[in-house]
C-alpha cells in the first residue's frame, strides 16, 4: 500500500524533516507512527498526501509513484486517502451531515444515493441523530467522529489519522480508537500518528518509531516505548 524508498525531506535552510526513510506498509495493516514532536510524523503524513514533495527518494502509494503524479491529479489521490486530524478540520459553516456530503459531492458523482450514504455513515459513527449540528455545537469527540465519517465515506483504501485523540479525554479516545479499528477490519489500511502511549501499548499493533527524521524502530506487535 505504502512504500518509502530512501526518502529524505529537508526544510530550507537545513532542518531535517525525514532522513533516508525506507519502509513498506502492506494493504490492510494497522500501523502506529510514534515519536516526539518534531520527530517527523507530520512530515511523513504530508508527504503521503503530497502536501510536500521529498528532496530525495521515492514514495509509492497504492502502486502509484507520487513523483510522477501530475499536479492536477493530486485531488484524485486525496480522494483515495481518508484524512483525520487532531483539530478535526471540519468546515465550520456546514452541519455534520453537510461536511460528509461535501466529501461526496467533491468526487463529482454525488447522486440521490449519496444522501443515504452520508446518513448511514453518520449512524455508523454513532451520530445518527446529530446530523444537523454545526461543529461548534458538538463535543470534541463528536467532531472527531464526524471527521472520521467524512474520511471514510468514500471507502478509501488508506486512512491516515494524525493525532486523532490528541485533544480528547481517555474514554472518548477509546471510542475513536474502536472506530478506527472497525474501519481497519473492513480492509482499509490505517496509519495513525500518535503520542498516546497507553493506547499504543493496549492495541499491540505494528509500531514505527521516528526520531529526528529517522526510523529508529519498526516492530510487528510493539508498544509505545522500548520493551
Amino acid at each position: 500500500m505504502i512504500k518509502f524508498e530512501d526518502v529524505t525531506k529537508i526544510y530550507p535552510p537545513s532542518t531535517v524533516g525525514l532522513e533516508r526513510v525506507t519502509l513498506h506498509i502492506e494493504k490492510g495493516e494497522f500501523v502506529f507512527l510514534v515519536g516526539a514532536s518534531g520527530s517527523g510524523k507530520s512530515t511523513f503524513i504530508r508527504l503521503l498526501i503530497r502536501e510536500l514533495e521529498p528532496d530525495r527518494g521515492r514514495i509509492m502509494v497504492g502502486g502509484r509513484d507520487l513523483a510522477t503524479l501530475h499536479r492536477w491529479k493530486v485531488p484524485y489521490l486525496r480522494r483515495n486517502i481518508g484524512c483525520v486530524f487532531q483539530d478535526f478540520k471540519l468546515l465550520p459553516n456546514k452541519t455534520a451531515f453537510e461536511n460528509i456530503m461535501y466529501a461526496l459531492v467533491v468526487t463529482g458523482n454525488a447522486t440521490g444515493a449519496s444522501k443515504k450514504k452520508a446518513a448511514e455513515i453518520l449512524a455508523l459513527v454513532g451520530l445518527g441523530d446529530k446530523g444537523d449540528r454545526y461543529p461548534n455545537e458538538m463535543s470534541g469527540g463528536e467532531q472527531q467522529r464526524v471527521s472520521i465519517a467524512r474520511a471514510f465515506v468514500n471507502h478509501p483504501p488508506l486512512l491516515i489519522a494524525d493525532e486523532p485523540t490528541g485533544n480528547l479525554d481517555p474514554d472518548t479516545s477509546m471510542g475513536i480508537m474502536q472506530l478506527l479499528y472497525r474501519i481497519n477490519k473492513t480492509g482499509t489500511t490505517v496509519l495513525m500518528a500518535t503520542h498516546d502511549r497507553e493506547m499504543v501499548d493496549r492495541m499491540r499493533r505494528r509500531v514505527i518509531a521516528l526520531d529526528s527524521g529517522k526510523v529508529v524502530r519498526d516492530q510487528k506487535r510493539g508498544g509505545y516505548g522500548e520493551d
Partner: protein
Amino acid sequence: MGKISFFLKEAFGSLTRNYFMTIAAFVTVFLSILVLGGVLVFVFTSDALLKEVEEKVEITVYLKNDPDPEPDQISAMQSEIAGWTEVKECIFVSKADALERMKEWFKDNPEVLDSLSGNPLPASFEIALADPQTVDVVAARFADNPIVDEVKYGEEIADKLFAFTNQARNFMLIFIVLLGIVAILLISNTIRLSIFARKREVEIMKLVGATNWFIRWPFLIEGVTVGLLGALAATVVVLVLNSYLVGRIRDSIAFLTVPLDAVPYLLVVLILLGVGVVIGAVGSAIGLRRFLKV
C-alpha cells in the same frame, strides 16, 4: 444534487454569511465603477462637444467675379461637389445672396453700402463636411478649377483644432485604461482579504480532494455577483446624476448645446456592467490563486 445548484448554494451561502466582506467588496466595486462611469459619460459628452466644434470647420469656395461664371457651369460644379462622399452639404451663395448678407451685417452703417458701386461680391459655395478632418483633401481639389478664385477654410485654425481634439481623446483613453487597472487592483485586494479569512476552509477542501475548479467556482460566482450588484448600483447613480447635471448645464450655458443624447446609454450601461462582472471574476481568481497552491 446537481453541481451547479451546489455551487450556487455555496456561493450565496457564504455571501450572506460573510456579509461584512460582501459589503466591503460591494462598496469597492460601486465606487470604482462610479468613477469609471462618470469619466465615461464625461468622455462621451465632451467628445460630442468636440465634434460640434469641429463641425464648424467649413470650406468656402469663392468663384471668379469678372467675368462671372455661366449658370450652367455653376450648377454642374454644384452637383459635382454634392456627389463627393466627404461632403455633407453644399450651399450655393449667389452674388445677390452675398449682397443681402452684407446689407444685413452693415444695416447700422448704411454709408458703407452706399459707397459700393453695383455688386462687387463674388458668388460662393459653402461646403460642410461629413468628416471635418478631410478638409485639406477636399480643399485641394479646387486648386486648378478655372472658375474658382479662392478657397478659404482657415487651415491654421483647423489644424490646431484637430491636433487638440485628437490629443484630448488620447488622454481620455489612457485615463480610462489606468482607472480600470486601479479598480481591478483595489477589488482583487478586497477579495483577497475576504478569501484570506477563509484560508482554512480552502485548505480543508483541498484535503478532502476537491479539485481547484471545484473550489474556485463558488468564489467566482461570489465575485461576479458582487461585481454585478456594485456595477448595477453605480450605473443607476451615474445615469441619474448625468441627466440631472446635463439639465443644469444646459440651463446655465445656453450657447453650448450640450447634447443629452450624446451619451450612448445602452453602450455605457453594458460597459459598466461588463467591467463589474470582469473585475469581480478576475479579482476573485487573483485573490484565490495563492491559496490553491497547497
